[in-house]
Each structure stands twice: as structure tokens, then as C-alpha cells.
């Protein structure tokens, strides 16, 4: 038996491929959109995973440091460390800054201050693509490659000039901003920095000037092997008048409290986009089928059974779906890294989308065939 679907496609393959590409691009956009959503959720947890602590200890009654501002005293890291269940501790300072990139644009960055000589370095060594971590206590900076600096570049922050000693790839804040790393001391200075004029002014007014320079935003800790982080966190909460979160609590805070509205926004948009493109694709398939009403009428006139006609249309629909799926993935993979924030393309998402679209397309084409088959053949061909 002749494969009618193949013959029909071969007869007008250009039109078929252009349609598949158009539908594919639409699918590609949907895939990117799903990827943006996924990227957002992953971005929110990058710092958390890079730092790799088991516990996050922050100011009492706050959800800090990412969801709420939090201040604790730096020496809390020593107090915690006395607990035999605590292995390593580190004090961290977080701060939003504007930085002037080499091409002169001001960019928002998220700065992480950590003790370069401490037990828990904040930089994930896997992210270092050039140079090294911070080694000196002052004026060294590790930047994200997205900012465009090269090693040994000088950056002015506050009153001081910093030297780029390392470049990372992929380190972002919960909001997707590139991360820079400085020493804890530098971070504290940047955070509580006053201009000379302000200091003179305050002194003249008799105000206490020396701001407490030993505050940090969070102290993180790892627990010794075999201890239960939840129990340790509970203990800290009870005895130290602090808030303590395990890494999974913190993950929850990040995805629920910090990026919730933003991710809901994108999530809703994604759902709508999937719905709308399903409808559009179904309509394209439906009109494509109805366009064949003349051919279908001829096939009916010469006596082809409905089954043969339906099979042909269904095969064409599936072929179009598969081609569009391939084009869509190619398209998405060709453009995803042009987006400023993280886009995560997952094959599972692509398959799920493919199934939805395929089911909708087959239904649309069957509905089209049904209408074409019901039509009076002599009317459809005009006599």
C-alpha cells in the first residue's frame, strides 16, 4: 500500500517544513519560558549550595539573611563552635552593590564577604574559571565572568581600590545578580562605611561615630558527622536567642519567601503560554487539515475508506509534531544562553510539552478529518 501521508508531505515539503519550523519556534519559546522558571528556582539556591553549610544562624525573629535583614555579632562563630556537635563555622556578610564594569556600565552585584582564612570558604572552587580565591585580608576581589573583568583589573569600591584575583562562572544571588566575593573585613567596611565628611560632622555633633564594625549578617556552620542538624538548630534556637535554620529550612525560605512572587509570576505566565500555544498549534493543525478538504473529497469520490484518510492525516500530524519538537529544541538550545539570567532546559519538560501538544494536535486533526469526511464530496469539489 502506498503511504499517502509520506506522498502528501513530499509533494509540498517546503510548506510542511516551514509550518513545522513555525510551530517549532513557538514550542522553543515555551521551552525557554519553562527554562526561565526553572532557572529562577535554581538561581535562588546557588549561594546556599556553594557555601555548603548545614546550619544558618541569624538574628532572632528574622528569616535572614536573604529574606530579611539580619545582624549578628561576628564572634558568634566562636560561641557556636564550642558546641561539640558543631564542626566548622564561618561568619558571612552580604550586601547589594553597584559596580562599574569595564565598559562603563553600572551593574548591580551581590557581594559576599567571607573570612579567607576561615574554615568554611564561601567560594565554590568548581566555579573558579580563572585566578584563585581571596588570600589576603584586604582589597582582593573575586568577580563573576558576566561582569567582564580580567584578572588584575582594578575596581574601586567605597574608598579603596580592589584587585581582581579570581573569576567565577555561574555564581548568582537569589535574584540572579552576579556575585562578587571580598574578604569579611572589607565587606564589613563597605557595609558600615561612612564618608570622612559624615564622620567629621557626626563627631562635631557629639554622636558616637565608631559604628560597630564587627557585625555580620549570618553565621553558618556544619555539624559533625552523625549529628542531626534539626536537633542542633533547635538547640541553638532555645538557648541562644537566635534564629537557626537548617539548609532545607533555608532552601524553603529562598524558594517560598524570597522568590515566590517572581516565580509565581513567571510560572503563571508559563502556564498561560503553554495553554495559548497549544490552542494556536491545534488551530494550525485544524486549518491544515481543512485545507485538504478538496483532496479528501477526491479520495472519498474514488472510494478510499475513512480509515485510510484518517490514518494519512494522523500520520502527517504526528510527523509535523515530531519535526516541530526537533526544531523547537534546536531553537531553544540555540538561544538559551543569550538570556541574561539562567535558563535551564530539561528534557523532561520538553517531553511533557511534546505530549500535551501532540495530544492536542491529534485531537485537532481528527476533528478536522471528521468535518472533511462529513462534508458532501460533490459540494466540496464544486460539482
Amino acid at each position, binding site marked *: 500500500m502506498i503511504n499517502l501521508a509520506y*506522498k502528501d508531505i513530499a509533494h509540498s515539503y517546503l510548506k510542511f517544513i516551514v509550518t513545522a519550523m513555525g510551530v517549532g519556534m513557538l514550542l522553543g519559546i515555551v521551552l525557554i519560558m519553562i527554562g526561565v522558571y526553572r532557572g529562577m528556582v535554581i538561581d535562588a539556591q546557588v549561594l546556599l549550595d556553594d557555601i555548603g553549610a548545614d546550619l544558618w544562624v541569624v538574628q532572632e525573629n528574622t528569616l535572614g539573611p536573604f529574606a530579611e535583614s539580619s545582624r549578628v555579632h561576628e564572634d558568634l562563630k566562636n560561641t557556636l563552635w564550642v558546641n561539640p556537635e558543631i564542626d566548622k563555622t564561618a561568619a558571612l556578610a552580604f550586601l547589594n552593590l553597584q559596580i562599574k564594569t569595564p565598559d562603563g556600565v553600572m551593574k548591580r552585584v551581590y557581594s559576599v564577604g567571607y573570612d579567607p582564612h576561615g574554615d568554611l570558604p564561601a567560594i565554590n572552587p568548581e566555579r573558579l574559571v580563572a585566578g584563585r580565591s581571596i588570600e589576603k585580608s584586604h582589597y582582593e576581589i573575586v568577580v563573576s565572568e558576566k561582569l567582564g573583568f580580567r584578572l588584575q583589573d582594578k575596581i574601586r569600591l567605597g574608598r579603596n581600590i580592589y584587585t581582581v584575583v579570581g573569576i567565577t562562572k555561574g555564581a548568582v544571588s537569589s535574584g540572579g545578580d552576579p556575585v562578587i566575593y571580598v574578604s569579611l573585613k572589607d565587606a564589613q567596611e563597605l557595609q558600615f562605611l561612612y564618608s570622612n565628611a559624615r564622620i567629621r560632622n557626626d563627631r562635631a555633633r557629639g554622636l558616637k561615630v565608631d559604628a560597630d564594625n564587627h557585625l555580620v549578617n549570618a553565621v553558618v556552620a556544619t555539624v559533625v558527622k552523625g549529628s542531626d542538624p534539626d536537633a542542633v538548630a533547635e538547640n541553638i534556637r532555645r538557648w541562644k536567642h537566635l534564629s537557626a535554620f537548617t539548609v532545607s529550612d533555608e532552601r524553603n525560605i529562598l524558594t517560598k519567601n524570597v522568590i515566590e512572587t517572581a516565580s509565581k509570576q513567571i510560572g503563571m505566565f508559563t502556564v498561560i503560554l503553554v495553554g495559548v500555544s497549544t490552542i494556536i498549534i491545534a488551530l494550525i493543525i485544524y486549518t491544515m487539515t481543512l485545507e485538504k478538504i478538496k483532496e479528501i473529497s477526491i479520495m472519498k469520490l474514488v472510494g478510499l475508506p475513512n480509515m485510510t484518510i484518517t490514518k494519512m492525516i494522523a500520520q502527517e500530524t504526528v510527523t509535523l509534531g515530531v519535526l516541530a519538537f526537533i526544531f523547537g529544541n534546536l531553537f531553544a538550545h540555540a538561544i538559551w544562553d543569550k538570556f541574561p539570567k539562567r535558563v535551564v532546559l530539561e528534557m523532561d519538560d520538553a517531553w511533557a510539552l511534546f505530549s500535551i501538544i501532540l495530544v492536542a494536535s491529534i485531537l485537532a486533526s481528527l476533528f478536522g478529518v471528521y468535518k472533511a469526511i462529513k462534508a458532501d464530496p460533490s459540494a466540496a469539489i464544486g460539482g
Partner: protein
Amino acid sequence: MTNEVGIKVENLTKIFGSGESEVRVLENASLEVKKGEFAALVAPSGAGKTTLLMMLGCVIEPTSGKIWLGDELVWDEDHWSTPDTRRIRREKIGFIFQAHYLIPFLNIVENVKLIPLVNGWPDEKAEKKAMELLDYFDITDKRDAMPSQLSGGQNQRAAIARALSNEPKIILADEPTAALDMERAVSVVKMLRRIVEEQNVAIIMVTHDDRLLPYCDKILSIENRKVVTTTQSAHLIV
């Protein structure tokens, strides 16, 4: 000619539309064409020749009456004998329409062998039959061409080849020779004549050309929405 029924129609009525737009095409028309009989259908334009053929071919529904194809009563007053009327068409009837109605995305040989294949013929047999017919109609060199690449006459010949491909016992032909020159028209009609005699087929052929009438056994005409039959002795092919 035998005495077996090829095509038989009793009190066939066809009314299109209703009320103001009502068109009465046939009213209580009757006719009979036996197996081995070649009938010409002659009537002015708009008289209902195509409509009659479409009803005989189970394409459009009559308003009332009875139609037999062979010994099968296919239309009984208000219903087809089977919901799958297309099966009747592809197994019993060779239909040559007023337009060629070749499937545009199949090449000529595929168009010709499609129905035999759907009827379950093996590919070699269908291919052999198709090539025989293409050869007979002198379009063998067009076997791989698409219908859009052929002239009107070549397409019409391909359509006739297709109608004969399933070796039908009934042939309904709506002006099969209209797109052909006289020489080819005569040769097509002679061929139909041979099929009638050799294969005991019943044929109704619509034609406007008086020069083709001598090859027919019967002339059917539509007068006052009824079919009038004139029997004559045809030129037999020797």
C-alpha cells in the same frame, strides 16, 4: 449482451433544496442497463446527467426510488443498503468523473493502482494492471509525472485508466471524451465497447458527441425529468 441486470433504476426522484430554492432534477425516472450493454446518456446541460450518475455511483442520496447494481439493491427508497457506500464504489464501479479528479500528490501510476491496492491486490499485480492501462492509453512515459504536469487530455486518459484498474462490472462515465480529440475519443469509446463485450460490463456514458453514439446499444435521454430509452443496434467491434 446477457439478461442479467447491470444497472436498474425504478421511480427515482431527486429534489435539491426545498421551498423557493427547490430544484427538481428527476421525478419517477426508471431505466435499465444489462450486463454487456453500453448505454449513452444524452441530454442538454443542466438536465441532471451528472446528478443521475452520482446517485448510481452512491455519491449522492436520491430523494426516493430504488437502485440496483447487479443483483444488489443499493438504494431502497430512503436508505443505502450499507453504510459504507464507498466500498460499493471501489469494488464494483469504475467512475469517470466530469473532471479528472486525480489525487494531486500521487504520480500517475500511483493514482491508477491506488484503488486495487486498497482492495487488497498485491503490489505487483496492481502495478502490472496499471502499466497495461497506461500503455493502452499511451501515457506510459508519464508514469512518474504528477497530475499537474500533464495536459487535460492526458489527465483524462489517466482518470479512465484509474476507473478501469479495479476491473469493475459497472462503468459510469461522465463525458470521458470531452477533453480528447476525435481520434482519441473514438479509440476510448472503442475500448469501452471491447470491455463491454469481453468482460460483460454495463456502461453508462454521458456524451454530447453524436459521432460516438453508433458504438452504443442504448441511448438514454432525460425528458421532463424522466429517462427515455431508445434501443439500437450498435457497431460491434470485430
